[in-house]
Structures are given as C-alpha cells and as structure tokens.
C-alpha cells in the first residue's frame, strides 16, 4: 500500500479543467518535484490535496485513510502540511508565536484552559515554547525569535515558514516554490534544509521552476501539463524525455533549418 496516493482526481473551474483525472503515488521518505509550465495546475493540486479546494471527483489517501472532502485543518492534523507560494507568515506575531501557533496542544488551546489559566496549559505552553525554539534552530534563526513576522527578510520568511511547518510535524510536506525569490546563498541553504528533512524521514513534494534546484535535490520528478501527468521518472529520465521538452521548453527546432 502506498504511503500517499492520489487517484482519478479532477477539478474544474467554471468548465475549465484544471486537474484532469490525475493519479500518482508518493513513496515514503522521498523527495519528489512537481514541475510543469505556468498554469499547468501545480498549485491547484496542492490546494485540492490540502482541502482548500474541494475536488470535483477522485480520491486522496494518506496511510490508506481517505482525506478528500475533509476541511483543511483536519487534513493538516492527519500529517499533510504545506507552505505557500507567496509566504503566509503572521506579520504582527513574533517568529516564536508563528511557530507556537502550529504546534499541537492537548488541552492548552481550550477556552476553559484559558479562562482558568490551568497549570496544565502553562506547562504545555512552556514545553511547546522550547520545541518551537528547537525548530527555529534547525533553520538557524533562533536569534530572530522575538522579531515580528513582517520584520524579516524575504529569505528569512521562507525559512521561518518551513520551521513553522515542521512545528506542525507533518509526515508529508508540500512546498510551493521554496526557493522562489531567494538569492544564491539562501537557495543553497534551502536545498540543504530540504535534504536534511528527507534524512529525518519526511516525505516531500515540492513545486519548483528552477531546474537546477530540481535536478540537485529531487529523486523523482512528476511533470504536469494541462492538469495531467505527462512524465514521471528520475531526473535523468525526465531530462531526456521528448514530451517534457516539448511541453516545457517548446518544440525543438529542426537542426536542418
């Protein structure tokens, strides 16, 4: 049984088919890239998997439990976390609060715990604070814990968003263009981070336009075009796939002309 599977998934927007009978499986602990030309439906796939869009038809399962049709917060709790293309940090909360919002609480988040300020809530919050700092250390930004989300640089915000995702402790991480807009040193840092997450046993599916990044870290590549998978294979297989080259880079000119 596959760890994660998408089966015959479809999604229409006012008659336009954004995802067309899509099926794929992900292997546990692997880094998979989802690539494709603009408008291919990559982010829509993420939105449907995470429940922000309702699928028209089809099935999504993690650990053979069906998640399609559930609200996003339930899907997140079942082990699927995501980042956003345009980074969604909480601008007026501190970095630490950003992470603590993602952590799981057993009773501390209840209204009654808040009203009675229970010992248990205080203990749980203190424990979560140290967990949050641990996650911040992973991205090397523990010194920024008291800065507001809006005070960080673009690259730092991307890293904090990933640290926050780790605080949710998902098994499957969906990263939407993790290196977009980053300067080269930061791209290297991000690649290192993603590989490290794989070492820790996370499964990663990421959308990426930078082919160098894809070729460097992806073990498998899914190529999406018009909501369909047109190729699925290792980086070297994809690089030499004619259909991909046509869809992605345009038709190769005839050498004779």
């Amino acid at each position: 049984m596959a760890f994660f599977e998408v089966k015959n998934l479809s999604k229409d927007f006012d008659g336009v088919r954004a995802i067309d009978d899509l099926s794929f499986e992900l292997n546990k602990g692997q880094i998979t890239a989802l690539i494709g030309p603009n408008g291919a439906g990559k982010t829509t796939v993420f939105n449907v998997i995470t429940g922000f869009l309702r699928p028209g038809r089809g099935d999504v399962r993690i650990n053979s439990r069906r998640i399609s049709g559930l609200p996003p917060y339930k899907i997140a709790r079942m082990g699927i976390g995501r980042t956003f293309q345009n980074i969604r940090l909480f601008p007026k909360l501190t970095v630490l609060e950003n992470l603590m919002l993602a952590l799981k609480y057993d009773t501390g988040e209840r209204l009654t715990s808040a009203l009675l300020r229970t010992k248990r809530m205080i203990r749980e919050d203190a424990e979560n604070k140290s967990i949050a700092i641990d996650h911040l250390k992973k991205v090397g930004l523990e010194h920024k814990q008291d800065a507001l989300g809006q005070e960080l640089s673009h690259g730092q915000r991307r890293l904090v968003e990933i640290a926050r995702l780790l605080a949710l402790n998902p098994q499957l991480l969906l990263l939407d263009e993790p290196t977009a807009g980053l300067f080269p040193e930061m791209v290297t840092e991000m690649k290192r981070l993603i590989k490290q997450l794989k070492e820790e046993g996370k499964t990663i599916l990421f959308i990426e336009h930078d082919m160098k990044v894809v070729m460097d870290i992806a073990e498998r590549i899914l190529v999406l075009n018009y909501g369909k998978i047109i190729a699925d294979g290792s980086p070297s297989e994809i690089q030499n796939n004619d259909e991909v080259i046509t869809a992605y880079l345009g038709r190769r000119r005839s050498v004779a002309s």
Partner: protein
Amino acid sequence: MEYLLHILVIAGIYIILTLSLNLILGYTGLPALGHAAFSCVGAYVSALLALNYGISPWIGLLIGAIAASLMGGVIAFPSLRLKGDYLALATFGFAVIVYSIAKNWVAVTRGPLGLPGIPTFSIGGFQLSSIWSYLILVALLVALTAFLLNRVANSPFGRILKGIREDEIATESLGKNVNRHKVLVFMIGAFFAGIAGSLYAHYITFIDPSSFTIMESITILLMVVFGGMGSIKGSFVGAAILVILPEMLRFLGMPSSIAAPMRQMIYGLLLLLLMLKRPQGILGRYRFR
C-alpha cells in the same frame, strides 16, 4: 456628585461593551457592526424575566448573558462564509433586525413605550438603589470582564484568534479549526455584551428600543477603534474618553438641543483626527482594516 457617579457607571457599562467587542474585532479581526443587538438581548431578557416572572436580576443577568451568547452563536454562522465588508454588512443587518423586533413585538416588549419599573439588584433584601453601591457592582463586573478577556487573549486559545486576524488560511493550514473559534469568539463577546445590557436595564430601571439602535453599535465600534484594537487598556481609555468628553459640553453651558448633535459631531471629528494622526488608536498596535 450624584451626576459624576452616574457618568462613571455609564462609562463602566461601555467599558464592558468595548472590551467584549474588542475581542471580536480587535483580537480576532472580525468586523462586527451589531454589538448593541447583543446588549439589547441581554437587557430585554433580564428585564422581562424580572417584570413578568419576578426572577431575581442576578439570575436574569446570567440568563440574559446566555441568551445574548446564543444569539452571538447564531450570527456567527454567516460570518463563517462572509469576509470583511460583507461580514460588517451582515452583522449590521442583524442589529437592525433585533432593533425592529424590540420595537414591533409590542405584545412582549411593549414596543416604543418601553419597559418601566425594572427592579434593581439586591443583596439579601438590601436594594442596590444607591448609586454608590451600583458603581461598586459595575466596577466589579468591569474588573471581572477585563480579567477574563485578558486571560482569553493571552493564551494559546487567544493566539489562534490572532492567527485568524492575521491570516485565516495560514491558521487553517496549521491544523486549527478556524470556524469553531469564530463561533466561540462571537459567543464570548456577546455574553459580556449581554451582561452590559442587563446592568444597564436594572440600573436605569427603564429600557426602550432607542437605547439599542445601530448608532449605539457604531459608538461601541468607535470606542474600540479609538482606544486601540487588540488592547485591553485601550478599551478602558476609548470608552472612558468617549463617554466623558461629551458630558463636558454641558459645562460649557450648551442647551441640550445643541449638545446632542454636538456630541455626534465631536465623535466624527475625533475619529477623523485619529485616523489621520494615529490610525492604530490611542493604545493599539493594529490598524483598522
């Protein structure tokens, strides 16, 4: 002296209203425009229970608050689908409906005639009819409201509310049930607004629909924005200033026919100045969006 204490009692009631709206608007970022409707429910339920069934105002206060809270839960449901301006309009409409019911359901509320002779609070046969004793009661309830809402705001629960204000989608993506928290926050806010309404009814001993118009909701909204969104202290400052300042006009020897419209003009002018010079309110950190 009597007059001064009266102003303080009224300011106290408005502080409770402002604090409770601040939880919805300032902390959670939901633009609710019908807060007077909740205090209207609290006031009428509590007053009618006392007048028709001889139920103690203390119990009426609690039942009124619970009724307002349930009403808050009901109005929260459209808020799950509506955002921003649309939510503001929906809550505005809700406030108009509640006002119309109070005005037109004559068989129960006596309509525009109002309900006179509402009993005051009493402790073991001792009527809290002196203004001093009433001021103490209001002060205690203000302190209790501020204490509880401060606990709610500064807790993991409150952090989720702030998350909803900052970015609903991100909050949901982190496994937090945004809809449930929105409903809860409306219920908590309405509960305390219901307390304020009931306090008002048993203090003035007379209520009519004109105390719960849409202008009243806007005044409370102004107090929140003026004092500062997401600031407990700000709610005290905002409510106190906007209650006390217009009263000063009386000392300028203005006849009440001029003082009343002047009050509205001063509110407008103050708000204009504030938006230009300090859009986050006197003590607030967040701007009105």
